[in-house]
């Protein structure tokens, strides 16, 4: 017990936030089993009901169970944020290592492209892409991916370039390792930890962006439960049932703040500079 206490000293925000995230991830996986009701089952006879045993957080304007909708909403937000994270990390890893390891004109071409994408304010480009592809969840996911991989690619490229000149890579080359082996066995494992730290912060952004786009009506389409869309629906009933818009907002706040706290303390530990 005493040992745990010393280990946690000064790190309790980190511990609490990790706990919150673990709970949210569990909820999003287990949603179909722990949700008390069907999240999209409409029952107009039971609309805007106060909390009861059957509906622990009451019902919304269409008589759907609020708690179930919140639980399933975690699934959408966390699931798609993870998907965006993994996909953009994958693209960034391929492009970044290629550019950094090969150098030359490939490097210049790829990095100029990244510069170009970074010249746009992030969400403006996402909105532009969604605007041209049309509203919808997959368009939003693709747009966020197209914008986010650039940051990973740039960072990975920088690390690969500086690592390439170090002795252990030269040693590997002298001992006859192929390029592919050097990349797989030596470069990628060294690049990943700091990138994961950056990814924690990016997860928070992704969740905010997904919900913001859904709020604008461009992302998830009803009746799928999603926190941003739920806030949007809830605002019409602000005077009579403010909890309809308050609960989903608090969910987003908890998840994003947890990602930010964890990301920040990890980046302090790893000495990774965060991007503002």
């Amino acid at each position, binding site marked *: 017990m005493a040992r745990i206490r010393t280990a946690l000293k000064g790190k309790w925000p980190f511990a609490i936030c990790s706990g919150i995230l673990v709970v949210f991830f569990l909820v999003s996986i287990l949603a179909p089993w722990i949700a008390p009701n069907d999240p999209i089952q409409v029952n107009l006879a039971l609309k805007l009901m106060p909390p009861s045993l059957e509906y622990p957080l009451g019902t919304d304007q269409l008589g759907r169970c609020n708690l179930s909708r919140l639980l399933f909403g975690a699934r959408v937000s966390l699931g798609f944020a993870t998907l965006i994270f993994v996909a953009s990390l994958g693209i960034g890893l391929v492009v970044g290592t290629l550019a950094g390891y090969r150098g030359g004109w490939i490097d210049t071409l790829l990095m100029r492209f990244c510069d170009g994408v970074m010249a746009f304010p992030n969400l*403006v*480009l996402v909105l532009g892409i969604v605007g041209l592809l*049309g509203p919808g969840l997959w368009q939003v996911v693709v747009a966020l991916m197209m914008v986010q991989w650039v940051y990973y690619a740039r960072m990975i490229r920088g690390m690969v370039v500086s690592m390439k000149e170090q002795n252990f890579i030269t040693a590997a080359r002298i001992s006859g390792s192929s390029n592919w082996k050097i990349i797989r066995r030596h470069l990628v494992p060294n690049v990943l930890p700091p990138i994961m730290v950056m990814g924690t912060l990016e997860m928070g952004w992704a969740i905010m962006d997904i919900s913001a786009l859904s709020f604008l009506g461009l992302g998830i389409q009803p009746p799928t439960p999603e926190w941003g869309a739920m806030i949007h629906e809830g605002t019409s009933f602000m*005077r009579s049932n403010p909890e309809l818009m308050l609960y989903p907002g608090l969910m987003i706040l908890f998840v994003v703040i947890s990602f930010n706290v964890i990301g920040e303390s990890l980046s302090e530990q790893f000495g990774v500079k965060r991007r*503002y």
Partner: protein
Amino acid sequence: MVIYLIKRLFAVVPIILFAIFLMFVLVRLSPVDPAQAYLAASNIHPTEELLAEKRQEFGLDRPLIVQYFQTVADIVRFDFGNSYVTNTPVWQEIATRLPATLQLAFSSILVAIIVSVPLGFLSAVYKNSWLDHFSRLLSYLGASIPQFWLGYVLIFFFAVKLDLFPVEGRGTWQHFVLPSITLSLALIAIYTRLLRASVLEELEETYVLYGRTRGLKEKGIMVKHVLRISISPMLTGLGMNLGKLLTGTIIVEQVFSWPGFGRFFIEAIFNRDIPVIQSYVVLAACLFIVCNLIVDIIQLYLDPRISREGRTQF
């Protein structure tokens, strides 16, 4: 320095060209046919003849490379085409809506600076005090609260419950209060942390020690020297976060029914009003680039030590 400036100015040109190119590619890749979108937006039933006629009018039948240079030439002349919905030049639409957005943006920057300069400075000077903890909490909140939700929460408490401020629209100063607070919280979060970090860094410098050994008043050292130098990173922060401010205006305008450029952009997305979408994105990129350039130049002026090599290339 002059050579550096000229270099920087020329470096901007290819980036803007690339921005236009990216937009151009996206428009061509999009499944939306501009001719069809135009007719749909003007409520005209599309026939084959009309579609072909419109396509010719938009120059869609010409080779892609010609179309691209035509687009660049149009944008350089500030000709963004006509909105499909209102059929007036996009430039005119922008000009009528931009002032509202700029007012909102400037009032939020003002609020952000008024709050974050004293807060960041004091939380560095009184490190680990309750004020420091409070400012840390505020920064985490500011970075993690979804802006649209914050807007509605403020509306709920201050407009609906307490009836202190109007719910939406634009006109008197009261209309500015809630949108500016909503928009500025994210900026406050960033600037407070930035200023705190840079003040802490400056406090380690030898000139602070020298000032103290000379017997200068602590207050004088802090305000005259430390604060003045520490402000500089905030300028960079201002340039880099312009994008956040821009997207923030889109969302806040939507929440508070603010008649600005951002809301017009969202409407355009729903109407498939391609010229408006295209010009908003290109203009936002240009604004972003130019502001960062200006910030760089101001910084070079404030702190000539900044070497040319050490600076990030755009």
